[in-house]
């Protein structure tokens, strides 16, 4: 805002192409832009921009151990030595470009021996991604405008009056005269860009995982003392998690023993949690089984993996309060964790539909410790046009079947040592096997023999069975029934 008018602080590419400039009034900008679609206006909040840039720098730590935001709109990464890990500089550039595209950010990338050169090239070079080789720094910088090395405004104005507009012309000026006429700063920036001076950056650091510890004055073999200390450490840890508005997905516990190597164990949680009561039930069971050796000197707990867990209203009267969905989610997580803790991670599963026309493959179970399915994944659930039985037998059981004609209605089924006369017979329905999975496909000349002919038959008592004849062996099997 300037004198009560609203002016443009920043604009996107399309607006820039339409002629909107930084500093012009909003009314002017609106006049330049087309009426539809409506231009999107938001108040300019430089502090939030900086925070977002810091978060982006933290995210980019996966490409390099040193990343620093350089406002406005620039992130510097030190990739010296990272080429081995990523198999080449070009690959790093490609991965970063793709990541930015997936995040829907318009990004330009520059790689150079010095930070200043890389920034200059990224912002002002004609291509979107440029790599400057070791000896080509000066050549790359020559055609860039003066703003590329970010000089002070007075120095820039003075240079423009002299007719110096490109960096190449600046480099051609005699070095000794520069500090006197334009200030020492200009010479320093020039040297940083060319590699004659060192530039340091202020890298962003990932916050340490929350940790809590209790150390004893002497070793102890009493489990009650250990349990008390562990409980206190857990309370501290949960407090730290709450202050960061996070929940733990994995807690690692380290018990320091005297005259013996330390004991480590970890508990994994299906959902981020910071409730000391629930975490204690899982930890206490493990602590009791630990071998204390000659004595334990201390206990240390770290929340190794975190997940977002927003604050929620405290439920003081749980039997009267309306159960919110957050509480139900938390209770679900606790139920899964408790069962998994006792019966193993493979014992709690979620059904997941699979795209397959064969009913025995139409569904699989995956462990519930993994995050739940997105709703779109459930669209694979296909309710078949032909009816399917309510209970499937796995494996299908062999039966003796009498049919009137080879492809015709079924007359009698002998299954589980009981003969059943058939009152109604519906079918056949041919289900081709998934030949791309079947091991027999190499030896079978005609793939149609891998199909099964299914019949739905009802016996005199009213029980419906789903039977099939195997195309290959011509044997009959009962695959399911309507229970």
């Amino acid at each position: 805002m300037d004198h009560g008018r609203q002016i443009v602080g920043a604009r996107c590419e399309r607006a820039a192409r339409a002629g909107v400039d930084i500093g012009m009034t909003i009314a002017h900008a609106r006049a330049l832009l087309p009426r539809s679609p409506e231009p999107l206006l938001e108040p300019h909040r430089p502090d939030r921009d900086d925070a977002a840039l810091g978060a982006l720098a933290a995210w980019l730590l996966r490409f390099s151990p040193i990343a620093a935001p350089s406002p406005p709109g620039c992130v510097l990464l030190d990739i010296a030595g990272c080429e081995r890990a990523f198999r080449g500089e070009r690959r790093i550039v490609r991965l970063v470009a793709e990541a930015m595209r997936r995040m829907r950010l318009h990004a330009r990338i520059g790689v150079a021996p010095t930070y200043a050169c890389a920034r200059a090239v990224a912002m002002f070079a004609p291509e979107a991604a440029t790599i400057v080789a070791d000896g080509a720094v000066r050549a790359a910088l020559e055609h860039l405008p003066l703003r590329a090395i970010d000089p002070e405004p007075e120095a820039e104005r003075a240079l423009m009056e002299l007719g110096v507009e490109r960096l190449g012309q600046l480099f051609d000026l005699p070095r000794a005269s520069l500090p006197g006429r334009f200030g020492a700063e200009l010479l320093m920036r020039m040297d940083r860009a060319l590699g004659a001076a060192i530039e340091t950056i202020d890298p962003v650091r990932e916050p340490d995982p929350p940790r809590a510890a209790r150390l004893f004055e002497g070793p102890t073999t009493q489990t009650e003392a250990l349990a008390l200390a562990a409980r206190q450490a857990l309370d501290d840890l949960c407090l730290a998690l709450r202050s960061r508005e996070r929940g733990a997905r994995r807690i690692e516990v380290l018990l320091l023993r005297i005259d013996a190597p330390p004991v480590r164990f970890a508990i994994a949680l299906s959902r981020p949690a910071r409730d000391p009561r629930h975490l204690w039930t899982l930890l206490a069971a493990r602590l009791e089984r630990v071998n204390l050796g000659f004595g334990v000197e201390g206990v240390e707990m770290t929340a190794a993996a975190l997940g977002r867990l927003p604050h929620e209203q405290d439920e003081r009267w749980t039997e009267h309060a309306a159960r919110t969905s957050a509480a139900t989610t938390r209770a679900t997580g606790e139920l899964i964790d408790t069962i998994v803790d006792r019966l193993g991670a493979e014992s709690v599963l979620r059904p997941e539909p699979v795209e397959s026309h064969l009913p025995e493959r139409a569904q699989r179970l995956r462990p519930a410790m993994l995050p739940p399915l997105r709703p779109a994944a459930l669209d694979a659930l296909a309710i078949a046009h032909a009816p399917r039985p309510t209970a499937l037998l796995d494996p299908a059981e062999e039966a003796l079947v009498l049919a009137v004609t080879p492809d015709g209605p079924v007359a009698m089924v002998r299954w589980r040592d009981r003969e059943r006369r058939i009152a109604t017979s519906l079918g056949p329905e041919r289900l081709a096997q998934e030949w791309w999975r079947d091991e027999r496909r190499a030896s079978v000349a005609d793939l149609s023999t891998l199909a099964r002919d299914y019949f739905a038959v009802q016996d005199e008592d009213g029980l419906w069975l789903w039977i099939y004849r195997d195309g290959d062996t011509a044997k009959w099997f009962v695959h399911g029934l309507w229970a």
Partner: protein
Amino acid sequence: MPTRAELEQLAGRLRDLQAPPAAHRPLPTGWGAIDRALTPHTGPAGGEREPPTGGLPGGAIHEWFLDLEERPAPASAPPDRDNWFAPLALLTHLAWRTIEAGDAQDGAAGRLVVWIGRRCRVFVGAMAGLPGAAPSARTLIARSLVVNPPDGASALWAIDLALRSPAVGAVVADARGLDMACSRRLQLAAEAGGGLALLARPARERAALSAAATRWLVRPTPARPGVWAPSARWSVELLRRKGTTGWSGPSANGGRRWILEMNRAQGVVCVPADVADRSGEASPAPVRVSA
């Protein structure tokens, strides 16, 4: 000598104590005749409160026996093969009803159905019978958890834990070999948690003692002739309902039987009386409520 007003006030308080807590609403099964038969009768002076809707009593365990008239396995069969099945079409329908009723209630949205045991799984085929086919099936799958306990003791522990959890609306479990003490413990867990337990047991165990609120015997019956698709039909008999004087066995004349049919258009529905033999006594015989 207490006055009449004081006695009436005392009677009102006793009635309130006897009424089930609000969390344990009955679950409407969607089968009209069965819901009407399961409506608890209120006393003659209980006219101020609205009559409770009928359905399976909430906060309780219910046992379901599917009788396929299996003979015991011959000696040549593998020793661990079990000849019994659970009435999955009906149990899936009831599980879905639990979710639907829970979502309609304010404080119970988002609850889960937990399926415990190898025989009690949620199958795509069983879900074709849900009204509103694919979206209901998707909701049921999204809210289901399957637990695979390695033995009977851990199965009981898992059922108990699930019933006590506030996130669980219904538990469908494989409860072979449940004895009286265990079933009483499960009944207490169901009352504490407010959920519904649907326990499937082999038909040969229906003579065993149990603390279940209702016990049902399911038998397949012949469908009406001339069908083009398998529309399975079952005759469902209420063997026992806790809190009522019993009829003396499944074959007695006072037994309650209904016919349920599963077809693709409507799901599992209750077939009206004129088709079947015994179901559909329009006015149930008066039942004495005993403790």
